[in-house]
């Protein structure tokens, strides 16, 4: 619908008047100058750079204070839970594999390592992880995406207990911070793929989860999330409600004779097997895993339309395939 021109002109007039009013009101301040305004830097003087407070350097300590935790509890158990229930209708399986840890008086911190297709993965995981870890869960979030502006950083830290992490390399600073957090009893949610899937298929696992597990001794819990890519995948403008499945795997511990790369491969293989289990069944997945023929999370090796085509077929097998049939839209031929 087109807006009539007379309304546009009236709007422009109002905006112009408002701008001039603000300008006039601010005139005395401009005249007053320093200290009411920022000082000019004298020529030839170099001002030392302020240490960065965003990105990987954002300090999230405040988000773990009792008040912030209480606020987060309200957010995660209230609106977030409702949102996930309405949007994703999750089916959670495999929690019995964690029974040995859950039943302990003081379950040790764990590192949850799911595949990653959507922003709603984090909400889904927070809702699905057993309560004994949920309260102390911190989420590793991409520093360059969630911590690039103060408002985003504060919101992420408060609502999700997010911690900034570099996508590409888990630096010493980050790993020290995570080690301290694990020592304090915090569990960690980290996406080993480093970011959301760009095309609906998974990505190769980066070594962050394996490295942190080796450094801290905390077990890695492999998790497979199915269906979130079709609900709010990368590039989608608005979410399409659907069904999801979260499958927890048996916890993995680093072995003494295993380097981070091999440990990471083991974690990836565990998530791959869970992915097969979610789409087929336990026995088929077990046999394929034993033969080394589990379907790869990263999808077929070929590119182009066939890859996309196969994704559609793949999704039909999973939770996304249970979506209510969309109403057909026929082309208007007039």
């Amino acid at each position, binding site marked *: 619908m087109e807006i009539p021109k007379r309304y546009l002109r009236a709007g422009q007039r109002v905006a112009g008047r408002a701008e001039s009013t603000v300008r006039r009101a601010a005139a005395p301040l401009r005249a007053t100058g320093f200290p009411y305004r920022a000082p000019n830097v004298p020529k030839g003087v170099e001002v030392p750079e302020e240490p960065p407070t965003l990105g990987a350097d954002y300090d999230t300590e405040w988000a773990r204070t009792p008040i912030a935790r209480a606020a987060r509890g309200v957010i995660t158990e209230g609106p977030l839970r409702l949102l996930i229930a309405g949007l994703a209708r999750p089916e959670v*399986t*495999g929690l*019995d*594999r964690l*029974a*040995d840890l859950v*039943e302990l008086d003081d379950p040790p911190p764990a590192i949850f390592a799911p595949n990653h297709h959507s922003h709603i993965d984090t909400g889904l995981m927070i809702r699905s992880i057993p309560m004994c870890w949920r309260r102390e869960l911190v989420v590793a979030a991409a520093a360059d995406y969630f911590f690039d502006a103060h408002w985003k950083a504060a919101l992420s830290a408060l609502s999700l207990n997010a911690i900034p992490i570099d996508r590409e390399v888990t630096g010493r600073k980050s790993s020290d911070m995570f080690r301290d957090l694990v020592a304090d009893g915090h569990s960690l949610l980290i996406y080993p793929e480093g970011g959301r899937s760009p095309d609906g298929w998974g990505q190769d696992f980066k070594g962050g989860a394996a490295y942190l597990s080796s450094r801290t001794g905390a077990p890695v819990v492999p998790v497979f999330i199915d269906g979130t890519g079709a609900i709010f995948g990368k590039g989608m403008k608005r979410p399409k409600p659907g069904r999801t499945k979260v499958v927890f795997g*048996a916890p993995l511990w680093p072995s003494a004779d295993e380097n981070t790369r091999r440990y990471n491969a083991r974690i990836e293989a565990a998530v791959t097997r869970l992915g097969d*289990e979610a789409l087929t*069944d*336990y*026995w*088929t997945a*077990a*046999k394929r*895993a*034993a*033969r080394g023929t589990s379907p790869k999370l990263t999808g077929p090796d070929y590119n182009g339309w066939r890859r996309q085509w196969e994704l559609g077929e793949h999704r039909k097998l999973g939770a996304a395939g249970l979506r209510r049939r969309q109403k057909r839209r026929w082309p208007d031929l007039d």
Partner: protein
Amino acid sequence: MPRPGFVLDVDRSTPPMLFWRGEGFSLEKLPADRSRVVYPAEPLPGLDDVDGHIRNALLNPVDMEPLPALLSPDMKLTICFDDASLSLPKMRRPDIRQRIIEAVLDHAAAAGVDDIHIIAALGLHRRMHDYELRHVLGDRIFDAFHPRGMLYQHDAEDPDNLAVIGETDEGEVLEINERVADSDLVVYANVNQVAMDGGWKSITTGFASYRCLANHHTPTHLQETKSLMGHRDHSALHKSIWRLGKVLRDNGPKIFQVETTINNDAFPDTFGFLNKREWEWSAKDRALYVATEKSLKRLPNRAKRKIFHSIEAPYELTSVQAGFTPSVHEITLDNVYAQHLVPVEGQTDILTMGIPFICPYNPEGTMNPILVMCMGLGYMFNMYRNKPLVREGGVIIMTHPTYREFNPVHHPSYIDFFDEVLADTTDPVVMAEKYERKYAEDEWYRHLYRTGNAYHGVHPFYAWYWGAHGQQHAGRVIIVGGDAPTVRRLGFTPASTMNDAFEIASDVVGRAPTITHLHVPSVLVADVR
């Protein structure tokens, strides 16, 4: 360190003792200076890394090759597991059987075995509901195998699926499930909650036909079974089973037996007082007891059963061993006795016991009057080694409401047994001769057993025979708080209160008898010297 079981001598300062009364409890004061209470041991600590211990048992079996060496791609592998009669109450998920079978399946997948059947060892028990199979095996195994028909339950009345393995020197025919008989390897996942479970009994009863079970489930065998939980040499039933086991060993499939023992931790914290000794009840426990007892009294039986059968026990695994059946079973027995055995000096004139809401034949069902007899005289009376706790000719006093209620889905033949057989006789020998065959071969009961969730038509007879030794041994059996006509139909004496029961018992054992109370929960075996 958990405290061992012990015998408490009752004096005037001893608090009243907890008695089960079906789906309820009561506290009863026992006479001072001539009563004693046998308390079970506290739960032994569970194994830390359960899956690790299971893996270790499969890779380092007793007197057998490791499991991976027994697996090959073209073989017929059959995995068997105990039905819902174990454990009691049902253990919380994940069940031990699920953990064992998943570990076995991992090896089978690595070896490329395709022909796998997973079969519940039902014997003549009722078929398990799907939700019970899910509880025992977990969703993963159920979803993978049940839709393909690779997970099912033994049918002792399927003539096309039974095979005769051989015969013992005493003429006992071993007839078992054909798939089990034809398998290249049978892996059996046991839960050995008590000493009578496991060993050769797993397959020779769990997969037997009625014809085969009738070899040893007779009144004479059960009267000569002294006891079910004690030395095998004292049990005619187990001697017969061991003879059949030898036939199975010589002519049957290769069997890889996995046996597990669990501790005594039978009730979650909501029923915490059940796991404690009365004088150690805290204010919270006492409040919990009063609230539970009072509210249970006001609830209808159906609601009470729902509450109790929803209990999931926090049992922990205390040992797991695998390999050649007899060798494995000896280790298992040591581990079972480590938890259950309580030394007791001498017998007593009166044995008192509270009958709980459950026995092995009513998971998710009604504790009907026949099962009250079976639980009291068959199971609890038999919780001894060497000699019974009560002297021959002594009195057994049980507490249970003994309502005349039956579950028509699970126990159809029990209803007719109560109305027809018990109205005529309570003598197991007489009923076996006169009625057993008719019930065992009844087409309607057979149909319900094979297609529904009913116990086999002959099952009430077996439940009754189970108590045959206790019935023969006791001079009188009194049920406190039971429905009087129903109790009389069972051949027992009803009493309103415990004091009335002691008064009635004085006819048999005199005015100042010695009394022993078997304190349940948890499970214990009195080693009477």
